């Protein structure tokens, strides 16, 4: 073959490759090697630096009352203040309010705001802003799903610029918690605007430690320190949240020192990190219990789950410790009530059903289920004990379902697993009530009120008592719990509530998993071990010593 042909063929390709290589080499500015640095050395606190974390999703907007997803609330929480907040031990504390009084009839709360507060644009922050925000969240035209609690306020007034008073028709115990979750918005910027379409959602002005510096759509959000922060200055100058949808990519970025924070799963935490001393030199692992639990829920309107013996039997048949060991690699705790273990609301005298397959079989026998036809599956009146477990695409829930399926099979219950993406799952099964068993989780607020999940009046399609639980005594307790402001008395109400729930077993509590953040050791000032509020409670006090900061010019 003629040589001339070859050279013609290859030239084009080589030129392209050449250009690529040249550009690559030209722009390869390498960050200084971080291997030689000792990240464990102590350093005194100082100001400055950039903290980079990763999120799988992007916020739809930064007005929390409109945008409910976790990405939005996580970032908005750095920008806006509420009247109250929770301290490290999960006790209520003032944020914009320096104090508050509850009237003798327990129907009126008066908040006294701190003087001299400002918005990030140097405008005074007063009670007028609080009133404006309340009017906004209760306005029917505002497309917020969270108005119900605030609509219970029958009168809201501002006697002066530093006082905000709300009155309820009757005592409402969760009230203070609701005022710890409402981000106060600036009246002077939002007056006269349509909150549903305002550009403010993407260019917010708040009053908290950080203000928005830059939002590159689809790529990242950068927050920079707010010099007018009502709570004082934060130490770290800049927070960058990169949107990285894939967990594998996030982990690679963590390994390459391109992000500082990542939430790990149990395998990374318990198997990968312990085996890699090079990683432990620069990354520290933390463990914190969140306010959530995973459960298996029965559809109480479907036979045979209306029979308490069947529900209790399945509860005995599931080995919860195995779930914690297998799914969470031990990084979780068993739960016996719908509350975070270790908090006042969690009843310490309750214990989860032990793993007892014999007891399960005995209960099922009482309910009429035995293996009459010898096929290995229990049956009653000729119908086998078989059902479908539905769950969404969550790795831990999938694995839990697989383990549960095996244990149930051992005592003769035939179960199938169906996994769906979320919107279909809710639309097709939850809302219609057309399911047998679900494996789901609840992520709860810090107030113990769980009216929406367990009260018998909340069973309409789209409401959250979709399992169909109805117990008049529990209804009473839930109603009482909303009226009782005294913490001790309230605690007793919810302890009793949890006790009944455990006996009725409308759900099987599976576990509460730990949150497992991994944070680069350059970030100092972290409270370890984590207090009840989690390690993030004092994130404004974290700092990055100058010698440990990454070279911000060539950072990727």
């Amino acid at each position, binding site marked *: 073959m003629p040589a001339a042909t070859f050279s013609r063929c290859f030239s084009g390709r080589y030129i392209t490759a050449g250009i690529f290589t040249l550009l690559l080499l030209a722009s390869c500015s390498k960050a200084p090697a971080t291997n030689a640095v000792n990240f464990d050395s102590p350093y005194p606190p100082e100001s400055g630096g950039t903290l980079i974390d990763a999120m799988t999703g992007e916020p739809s907007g930064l007005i929390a009352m409109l945008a409910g997803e976790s990405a939005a609330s996580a970032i908005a929480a750095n920008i806006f203040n509420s009247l109250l907040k929770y301290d490290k031990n999960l006790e209520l504390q003032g944020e914009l309010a320096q104090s508050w009084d509850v009237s003798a009839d327990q129907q009126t709360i008066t908040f006294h705001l701190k003087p001299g507060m400002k918005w990030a644009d140097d405008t005074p922050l007063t009670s007028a802003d609080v009133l404006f925000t309340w009017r906004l969240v209760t306005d029917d035209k505002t497309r917020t799903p969270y108005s119900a609690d605030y609509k219970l306020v029958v009168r809201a007034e501002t006697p002066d610029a530093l006082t905000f008073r709300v009155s309820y028709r009757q005592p409402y115990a969760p009230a203070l918690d609701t005022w710890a979750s409402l981000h106060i918005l600036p009246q002077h910027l939002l007056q006269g605007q349509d909150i549903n379409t305002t550009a403010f959602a993407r260019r917010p002005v708040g009053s908290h430690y950080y203000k928005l510096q830059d939002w590159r759509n689809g790529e990242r959000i950068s927050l920079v320190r707010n010099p007018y922060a009502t709570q004082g200055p934060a130490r770290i100058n800049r927070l960058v949240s990169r949107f990285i949808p894939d967990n594998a990519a996030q982990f690679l970025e963590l390994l390459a020192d391109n992000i500082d924070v990542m939430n790990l799963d149990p395998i990374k935490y318990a*198997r990968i990190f312990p085996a890699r001393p090079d990683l432990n030199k620069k990354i520290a692992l933390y463990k914190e219990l969140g306010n959530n639990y995973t459960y298996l829920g029965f559809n109480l309107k479907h036979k045979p789950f209306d029979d308490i013996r069947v529900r209790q039997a399945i509860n005995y048949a599931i080995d919860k410790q195995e779930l914690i*060991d297998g799914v969470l690699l031990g990084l979780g705790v068993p739960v016996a009530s719908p509350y975070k273990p270790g908090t006042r609301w969690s009843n310490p005298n309750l214990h989860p059903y032990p793993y007892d397959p014999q007891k399960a079989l005995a209960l099922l026998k009482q309910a009429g289920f035995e293996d009459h036809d010898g096929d290995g599956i229990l049956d009653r009146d000729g119908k086998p004990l078989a059902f479908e477990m539905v769950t969404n695409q969550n790795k831990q829930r999938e*694995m839990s379902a697989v383990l549960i399926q095996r244990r149930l099979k051992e005592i003769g219950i035939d179960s199938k*697993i169906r996994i769906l993406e979320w919107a279909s799952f809710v639309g097709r099964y939850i809302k219609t009530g057309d399911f047998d068993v679900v494996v789901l989780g609840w992520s709860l607020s810090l107030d113990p009120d769980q009216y929406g999940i367990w009260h018998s009046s909340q069973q309409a399609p789209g409401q959250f008592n979709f399992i169909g639980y109805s117990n008049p005594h529990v209804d009473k307790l839930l109603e009482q719990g909303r009226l009782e402001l005294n913490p001790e008395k309230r605690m007793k109400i919810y302890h009793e509530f949890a006790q009944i729930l455990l006996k009725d077993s409308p759900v099987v509590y599976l576990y509460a998993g730990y949150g497992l953040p991994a944070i680069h050791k350059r970030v100092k000032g972290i409270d370890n071990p984590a207090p009840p509020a989690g390690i993030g409670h004092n994130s404004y006090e974290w700092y990055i010593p100058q010698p440990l900061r990454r070279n911000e010019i060539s950072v990727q």
Partner: protein
Amino acid sequence: MKKVLANPLALAGFAIIAAILLLALFAPLIAPFDPNAIDVKAILLSPSPQHLMGTDGLGRDVFSRMLFGARISLLVGIVAVGIATAIGVVLGAVSGYYRGWVDVAIMRLVDVMLSIPTFFLILAVIAFLTPSIWNIMIVIGLTSWMGVTRLVRAEFLSLRGREFVMASQTLGATDGRLIFRHLLPNSLTPIIVSSVLGVASAVLVESGLSFLGLGVQAPQASWGNILTDGKEYIQFAWWLSLFPGLAILITVLGYNLLGEGLRDALDPRSSNATSKK
């Protein structure tokens, strides 16, 4: 057949496919463990004499899961392509032979199908029908017949102009005879080649669907979902990625080699085949 086997590409491809088919067929006999046998104490063990390919996140033996996964991946590929080919051949033949408004209608249908992104259709159908293996196969089949249709139609169009067709028509052959005795057999090569290549493609699509969480669901094993399960631990639990990745690679390679080899061997216009002239 001799032509096929003489072609080294086809031979290599055929050998690979045969090996994998055999492994899949005899999976229950070869697999040392039940692919769904969970062992919470044996989570993420590296390959050892006991677990040739290590264990996964629930302690299940990866080698056994790979063998049973072979069945799933191959089944998905073959059935999906079967559906696509059946639809494609019928539509393409009718379109290419009768032409006229039938042709126009079918080609517009092809246009419509091509403009709706495959993934979207797959998601909608799977979301509505629930993600089972059969639904995945049907959906992949229903969204990949367009290429076969165009191929068959193109063949028919070009063959139609050939002398032997006109000769048969002059001799009074019916439409059916023409289609089945003359046109289809001569179009067979591109159909076979495209089917073989289609299986390769379907195996890759299944692994892509698993990545998005829409493939074969737990607890059933498929190469796609084993690979996806291991994607976050590539450096650590490398066996969860390497083996299914290699398996997919080799299988798809095998089908491609076979397909291309067949094309080389059987296509009368290629220099390898004996000329039909």
